[in-house]
Structure formats: C-alpha cells, structure tokens
C-alpha cells in the first residue's frame, strides 16, 4: 500500500517534470520575444542576456503606435480579416445547409471538390491570380485580398459548418417546414440561432487565417497604405537598420487580436474543430 502510494508520488513528479519541460519548449521563446520588445535596440543582444534589464521601457510600443504608417497596417488587417470572416461565415452557412439537409445529384462530387481545395498550394494559384486580379482591375485593393483569402478559408469553414449542422436533429427543421415555414426561414430562424457555437468556431478560425495571411498580401498589394501587419513586419525587416525592438513590439501587438480571440473562444473553437474536419 505504502509502495503504491510512493509509486503514485514518483509518477506525479515525473508528470510535473515533463509538464514543465514542455511548457519551457512552448512558452520560453514567446516570453523572450515579449521581454525583448521592452528593451532598447542596443540591449537586445547584450552579453550576458537578461530577461529584463535596465533599458526596460515602452518606447518601442510608443514608436509603433505613434507611427501612422504602422497603424495603417493594423487598420488594413482588421478590415480585411473582418470582411473575410463575415463573407466566409455567410457563404459557409448556406453551403453547409445544402450539404447537410439536401440530397442532390452532384453532392458527392462537389463535396470532394471542396475538400480537395484545401490541398491546392497557394503558390500554384499565385501566378494566374496576379494576371486575373490585374485584369479585374482590383490589383492593390481590399477586394482582391478578401476574395483570394476566401478561397482558403471557405473549404474548411464549409466542412466545419456541415459537420455542425449534421449534429442537429432533422426533426427540428421538419417541424418548421410543416408549419409552413420555407427552407430559408428554417435555416435563418431555427438552425442559425442554435448553431451559434459552430458559427463562432468557423468565425474565429477564419479570422485567424485571414489575419495571418502573407503570400497574397505580399503579391497582390503594392503600396504601403494597403499592406497588412505580416507584410508590415516584413517591410521593417527589409530596412537597413534593424529596429529589433520595434519589430518585436509590432509582432506582439499583431498577435494580440488572435490571442484574445483564442482565449475567449477556445472551448467553442476546439469543439468546432474536432466536430468539423477530423472525425474520430
């Protein structure tokens, strides 16, 4: 009995050691980034390194926040990500409804097509997009970014939404139909309100993807007033003098929206992810 209690204690200690080692692997790099963003640019690579040193200040953050050019990156990122999220959520609700509640001739093949889109490499689409976007006269515009981002947010969003609708009993919508409600009324009044967790999951997922997108933002915009946060960081890196602390401050500020969304909605998000794509 004593032996087994000691065994449990030893096991518990091993679990804790592994837990803390894992947390160092995941968390220390992030901690170092945050602490470095409060250092002066000269102290970033000081020897020996210190987590917090005498140069601690908010200067880098003030520099980023007082620069209209860099604030513009944030405005652009928010605008594009929110537009993409709204468009993706609405489109995926409609498509998910069709896949979940109707049988139609090309259902199987369309479903395969939508799953398949996830595997199309963005770099493959890059070259024709460039020509297409210029031809449509939307080069260097928000429209170009919103439309192209949706190609990559939509397929996963539809899979997630279909999966969520599939978990809801069909009796619900059939009851409304018998009461004389049309198909769209059923979707809008019944399914959408009770699918809120699924919709939130789709929305958070889409916002994260759109906020993080790099390749299309790099190639489909030209002027600095159209650049998003990831490209803004890229531009700072390309400058002659490396303003490390400013780049890091911009990075921390640029990560906050996703971090906050994730912390707020992680329960929905994780549940939605597992309901949607990967069925165990």
């Amino acid at each position, binding site marked *: 009995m004593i032996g087994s209690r000691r065994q*449990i204690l030893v096991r518990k200690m091993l*679990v804790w050691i*592994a*837990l803390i080692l*894992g947390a160092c*692997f*995941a*968390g220390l*790099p*992030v901690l170092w*980034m945050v602490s470095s963003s409060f250092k002066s640019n000269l102290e*970033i*690579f000081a020897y*020996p390194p210190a987590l917090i040193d005498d140069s601690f200040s908010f200067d880098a953050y003030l520099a980023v926040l007082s620069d209209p050019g860099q604030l513009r990156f944030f405005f652009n990122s928010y605008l594009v990500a929110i537009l993409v999220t709204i468009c993706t959520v609405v*489109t*995926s609700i409609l*498509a998910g409804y*069709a*896949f979940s509640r109707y049988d*139609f001739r090309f*259902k199987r093949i*369309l479903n*395969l097509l939508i*799953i*398949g*889109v*996830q*595997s*199309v*490499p*963005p770099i*493959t*689409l890059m*070259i*024709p997009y460039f*020509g*297409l976007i210029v031809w449509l006269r939307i080069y260097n515009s928000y429209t170009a970014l919103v*439309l192209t981002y949706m*190609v990559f947010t939509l397929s996963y969003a539809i899979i997630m939404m279909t999966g969520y609708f599939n978990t809801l009993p069909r009796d619900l919508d059939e009851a409304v139909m018998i009461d004389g409600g049309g*198909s769209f009324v059923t979707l809008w009044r019944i399914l959408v309100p009770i699918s809120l967790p699924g919709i939130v999951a789709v929305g958070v997922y889409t916002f994260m993807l759109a906020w*993080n997108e*790099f390749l299309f933002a790099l190639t489909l915009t030209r002027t600095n007033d159209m650049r998003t946060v*990831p*490209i803004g*960081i*890229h531009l700072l*890196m390309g400058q002659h003098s490396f303003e*490390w602390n400013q780049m890091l401050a911009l*990075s921390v500020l640029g*990560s906050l929206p*996703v*971090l906050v969304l*994730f912390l707020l909605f*992680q329960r929905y998000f*994780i*549940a939605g*992810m597992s309901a949607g*794509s*990967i069925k*165990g």
Partner: protein
Amino acid sequence: MFQATQGEISQRAVIRRQQLKRRLLPYGYLTPTLLLLAALTVVPIVTVFLYSLVDNVIVNPNPPVFVGLENYEEVLSNRKFRGALSNTMYFSLVSVAAHFFIGLSFALLLNSRLLSTNVKAVFRVIYILPWVFTASIIAILWRLLLNPHGVVNFVLLEFGIIPELNEWLSDRKLALNAVTFINIWSGYPFYLVSFLAGLQGIPDDLYEAGRVDGGNAWQLFLHITLPQLKPIIISLALLDFIWTIHQFTLIWMTTGGGPLRSTEVLSTYTYKAAFSSHEYSIASTIAMVILAICTFVAIFYVRSQRMADE
C-alpha cells in the same frame, strides 16, 4: 367531375413545381461557393497548366509559343529543382513526424489523471501558444533567438553543448535543420488540439476492460489509445504534410531559401522563378509539379475523410 380533374392537374403542377424547387434549392445555396471556386480555383489552375505548356508568357514581348512538355523536361532535369524537391521532402517528413510525436506526448500529458482540471487548463494554453503566432512573427521570433549573439547560442555555449557560436540560419550545414525545427515548434499545437479532443472521445470502459485483462500502461496505450486515434492520426498527418509542402512564409522570412539554396523549397523556388527571374512558364511548371504532389497526397486524405464519414 371536370372541375375535380382540373383541380387535380393544378395540384399536380404545384407539387411538380415544388419538387423542382426543392431539387434546385441546394444549388441556390451553393451558388456563392461555386462561383468563387470556379473563378478563383478552377480557372487559375487551368491557366497555370496552359502557361506550363508554352514559352514567353505574361511579360515577354514575343508571342507565346506552344512547347508541349518541354518545360517539364527542363524543370525535372534541373539540379536546382531537384535540390528544392529533396529539401521540401526532408522539411515536410521530419516536420510531420515531429509534430505527431510532440502533439501526442503533450496531449497524453494534459490528459493525465494525476493533474487537476485547473492545472490542465493553464498548461493547455501555454502548449497551444505557438499556434496563435503568424508565420512572419514566428520568423522574427526565431531570428531573434537563433541570432549568432542570441540567447540560444548563449545557453548552449554555457552548458558546453556547442563548442562555438553557431550561425544557425546562415550556415549551410545547419540552416535546413534550423528552419525545420522552427516549423516543428510552430505546427505541433494543431495535433495537440485534435488529439485532446480525440482522447476525450475514447470511452473509459475500454480502459477498464483492458486493466481487468491485466494490461499495463504501455499496453493500454498500444492496444487502445493508438487504434482509437488512428483515423485522426491519418487525416492529420496527410493534411499537415500537404500544408508543410505549401510552406512559404516561414522560409521566405528566415532564410529566403539560402544560404546557397540550402533551404530552398519548392514554394520559394517557384516564387523566385516567377517574381525575381520573371520566368513565368518555368514557374508555372514548378507550380504544376507541386500541385501534382499535393493532389497525390490529397487523394489519400479525401479517402480517409470519406472512411470517417461512413
């Protein structure tokens, strides 16, 4: 009598119209999706395929010339292409294997019955942390840490693990492993989250039965946990493999494919061919090869998804 028939006819017409409406309705709901995918997926893929069959496209003043598969011969026999292909495969396979191993270990750890719910909740957030950062920020973060005068070199040197300061990202022998490591760090949380959900879906009865049969922890893991997670493992690994083959930003912003092409992957190679050298035909050809590889993997992915559906 006459009236009844007419009523019947009109009723039948109404029913037929309703049936037609019901048949067309799903297509109505799918219209926005289909329009977008047709315009921004199907048309571009056809375009890029056509580009790969001709010379002199887009910026060249000469008219395009049809060359058949010559571009493919040129690309496939090119040493730079082969280097990029082998780098991509190394980068992707090592990343997927490590993602799986780390993701599963962390998920099992967070699922341990020896920990309280609150402890689990806190560590779960820490473990998922790398996921919230976008690739360009991850690139900055690791360029800071892996800088020759950075903290990683300092720690490794202090503990005597390395004899001298390493130029992790600009040493030809180290760079590919360094970017692979960065990708491993940034990508495992996706597995962790999926495995956590999967582990919670395994009924306790299975473990009870296994314990009654005298199984130890390792046997339970091998004969219950792993088989139960198998569908998740397969679709995750395939999806991740495809995504890693796509990876552009991380490599573009850490090494840009250098030094001396030692971290050149297919996507950075394509980007340079298109937007630095303006060889759009060659770039399109490489892009088609990447698409072919991804489609090949995707077939297995779609199959695994369909198996899970049934």
